[in-house]
């Protein structure tokens, strides 16, 4: 079946993808819709009224809410049925994560618990470990945490100093070291701890809070997420039974990085929930706030803000569920044995590492954009703690830092894709070579576009892919193995690739709505895609030119710049009107409109 096509990670850059090959929120089943309602209801009725209490870091309240979430099944979407969970698809997991978006600090408790706190056992635990820990984690009786970062090992995670040594009787590993910035530390019952066996072999351990030698340090005073617990975890001759080694000695990096991959995309999904809440809250305020005797939502600059927030949210939303669908298609073909194999799970998750980084960066930055404009629309009230905008603004900021900084994630996008190209896993090089040939004869003036609503946008997405391949190709040729050191170049390539995935996800989703429900139903989505592509094409051209100007000189520089100019040829459309129309729709509905 076409809709279940399995794509390779990063393949979107070299393949034309059909709308029916991506999953979109319009494809939700009745069950998906109900899960979304339950998650939203839970947040609206149980979390939002308690936010002031939660902000005071209230362990009893957190515990009872976690148990309630567990009772509703919200903690068990990824946990197999035989271990007390529901074993649902990744779309369902994404839906719950999105629903938790507006849950302030509780969203962090939930995210760390169900994601990095539980998934290492789900994907890499043996049957005994799963039976022992997963039912308690899925019910919310126990809370999970994840200990990777150390004072001297942040982004450079493998530089961990925490050491594990087998005890003389061979029954325990003795762990010594200190982990930093551990979410849920103050109330967690289990910690997934990474330590180097004999100072060399990076290994994961399941550590219970009551194991001898395990303690936590002082709460960090943070800019945001005041209701979450963040402490160092201290291991002083901590005794961890040998049966609590997770996966295999020396294979901790496989757990650590793959769990982070999932965490990245779940973070993106949760950010989408936050974005939608910002749009809705901001427009409610803007409709009610009068200045010069009219609602401020009638002003053009406020309309632009509302439209841009909603458009970015639409792209982000489309990306998260597209990726969820990609995972589901890939997981659907795994047999039972493979699902229980840590190696197989690692391989499956690793496949979409580039997309996970893309969604993390895009989702967190879309949220930061939205919270910023949310504050701005509220003016002075946005700066006052009496309104939620102030908390949203502080809470959002961490998302660009944790789960891998947006900087390392930007490096990883082209880095991983190019490594795969060299391994022959991803055919970037032939595609890049084809473009330089094509450029010699390509004339943008002779391009004939079909008379369909988004033909120009489809064309520009195609051209953007060529721009990305051309720029990456030029950079790879010039720097070879040293490209990894050219961070500024990699970052520009990453920007282009991230925006391609964003534009394309929004575009394909909209085309799918047109196909299924007709153009009229997709009216505002079409406007969003048009406005977004219009904003992005000149940016892409600029990023590309910056790289070329750095890499080439003389005749080559002129030739390559001419090539970019040809590929990026685009006549701007009237995006001011498009955004006004989208904003008017938001104002009319008084909510996120898509």
């Amino acid at each position, binding site marked *: 079946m076409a809709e279940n096509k399995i794509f390779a990670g990063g393949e979107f850059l070299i393949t034309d993808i059909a709308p029916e090959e991506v999953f979109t929120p319009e494809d939700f089943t009745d069950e998906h819709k109900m*899960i979304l309602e339950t998650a939203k209801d839970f947040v609206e009725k149980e979390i939002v009224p308690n936010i002031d209490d939660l902000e005071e870091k209230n362990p009893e309240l957190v515990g009872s809410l976690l148990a309630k979430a567990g009772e509703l099944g919200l903690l068990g979407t990824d946990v197999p049925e035989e271990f007390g969970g529901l074993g649902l698809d990744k779309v369902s997991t994404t839906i719950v994560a999105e629903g938790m978006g507006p849950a302030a600090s509780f969203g962090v408790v939930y995210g760390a618990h169900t994601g990095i706190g539980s998934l290492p056992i789900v994907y890499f635990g043996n049957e005994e470990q799963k039976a022992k820990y997963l039912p308690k984690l899925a019910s919310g009786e126990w809370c999970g945490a994840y200990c990777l970062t150390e004072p001297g090992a942040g982004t450079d995670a493998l530089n961990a100093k925490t050491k594990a040594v087998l005890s003389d009787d061979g029954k325990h590993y003795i762990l010594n070291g200190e982990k930093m910035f551990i979410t849920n530390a103050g109330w967690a019952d289990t910690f997934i701890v990474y330590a180097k066996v004999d100072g060399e072999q990076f290994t994961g351990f399941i550590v219970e809070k009551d194991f001898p030698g395990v303690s936590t340090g002082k709460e960090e005073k943070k800019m945001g997420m005041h209701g979450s617990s963040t402490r160092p975890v201290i291991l002083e001759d901590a005794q961890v039974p040998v049966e609590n080694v997770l996966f295999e000695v020396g294979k901790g990096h496989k757990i650590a990085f793959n769990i982070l991959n999932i965490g990245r995309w779940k973070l993106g999904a949760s950010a989408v929930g936050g974005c939608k809440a910002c749009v809705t809250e901001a427009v409610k305020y803007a409709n009610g706030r009068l200045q010069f005797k009219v609602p401020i939502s009638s002003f053009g600059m406020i309309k632009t803000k509302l439209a841009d927030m909603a458009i970015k949210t639409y792209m982000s939303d489309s990306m998260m569920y597209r990726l969820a669908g990609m995972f589901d298609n890939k997981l659907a073909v795994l047999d039972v044995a493979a699902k229980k194999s840590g190696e197989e799970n690692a391989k499956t998750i690793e496949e979409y590492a580039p997309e996970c980084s893309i969604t993390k960066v895009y989702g967190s930055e879309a949220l930061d954009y939205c919270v910023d404009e949310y504050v701005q629309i509220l003016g002075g009230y946005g700066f006052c703690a009496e309104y939620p905008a102030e908390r949203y603004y502080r809470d959002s900021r961490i998302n660009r830092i944790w789960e891998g900084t947006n900087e390392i994630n930007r490096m990883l996008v082209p880095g991983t894709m190019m490594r795969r190209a060299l391994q022959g896993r991803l055919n970037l090089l032939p595609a890049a070579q084809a473009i330089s040939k094509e450029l010699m004869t390509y004339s943008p003036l002779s391009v004939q576009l079909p008379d369909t609503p988004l033909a120009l946008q489809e064309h520009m997405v195609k051209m953007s892919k060529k721009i990305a391949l051309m720029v990456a190709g030029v950079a790879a040729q010039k720097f070879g193995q040293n490209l990894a050191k050219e961070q500024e170049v990699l970052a520009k390539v990453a920007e282009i690739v991230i925006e391609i995935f964003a534009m394309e996800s929004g575009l394909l989703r909209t085309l799918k709505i047109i196909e299924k429900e007709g153009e009229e139903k997709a009216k505002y989505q079409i406007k969003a895609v048009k406005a977004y592509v219009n904003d992005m094409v000149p940016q892409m051209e600029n990023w590309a030119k910056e790289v070329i100007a750095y890499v080439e000189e003389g005749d080559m520089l002129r030739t390559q710049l001419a090539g970019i100019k040809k590929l990026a040829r685009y006549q701007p459309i009237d995006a001011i009107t498009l955004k006004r129309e989208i904003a008017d729709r938001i104002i009319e509905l008084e909510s996120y409109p898509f």
Partner: protein
Amino acid sequence: MNIVVCLKQVPDTETQIKIGPDNKSIVTDDIKWVINPYDEFGVEEALQLKEKFGGEVTVVGMGPKRVTESIRTALAMGADKGILITDDALEGSDSLATAKALAAVLKDLEYDLIFTGQRGVDDDMGVVGPALAELLGIPNLSLIVKVEAAEDGKSVKVNRPVEGETLVIESSLPALITAQKGLNEPRYASLPGIMKAKKKPLEEKTLGDLGLDAAQFGEGARKLKILEMTPPPERAAGKIVEGETPQEKAAELAKLLHEEAKVF
């Protein structure tokens, strides 16, 4: 104890309602549909009674196919089976016709109690429950905030608030109860419940299946006709009283209250 809950699908109370070009109906394009909140109290009460006495909870809805979503939600909350009466000829039916269609389904079901909401939050008629009880020839207990079933499951004691006092009514079964706000706090549809609901039976019935005459239903058979719908008047903007001194402002205010607002 077998219980039937009649369920109506209504626009979410947060939906912005727009009146259609005919001035007699609302625009349904952007509406999010939910279970009528009063009916949801009925679902919850039925589930609590089932937990105590056993038996089955059946949810009956009427309307277009989209109503299955609301019935599924009730199944996800814990109801056992669903029935949707759906037929193009039902479009535009009034409350009495609705009660007749529901009665036709109910005559084939075994029940001790029937719950409906005390009214639908959309058109606020409050007729279907009592009309249905009348058609079935069973007692009607309206606007109930508390239900206590006898240990033997053969009778109920219910509370209705009346002018700040409480009226306690006892009734034999079967009976029909219309649920009022305060009866309970409806549970969430849990994720395991949602997954189980997928496999629960949900039957669709047309007027033909129920042996009913289509001429008695729909727009043409309405006993009540909607003549016009108008939105509530927009609140006029406030007025700032002008004047240099407090005395001047007070005089101006008094003048306005007398001449414009005509309060004295």
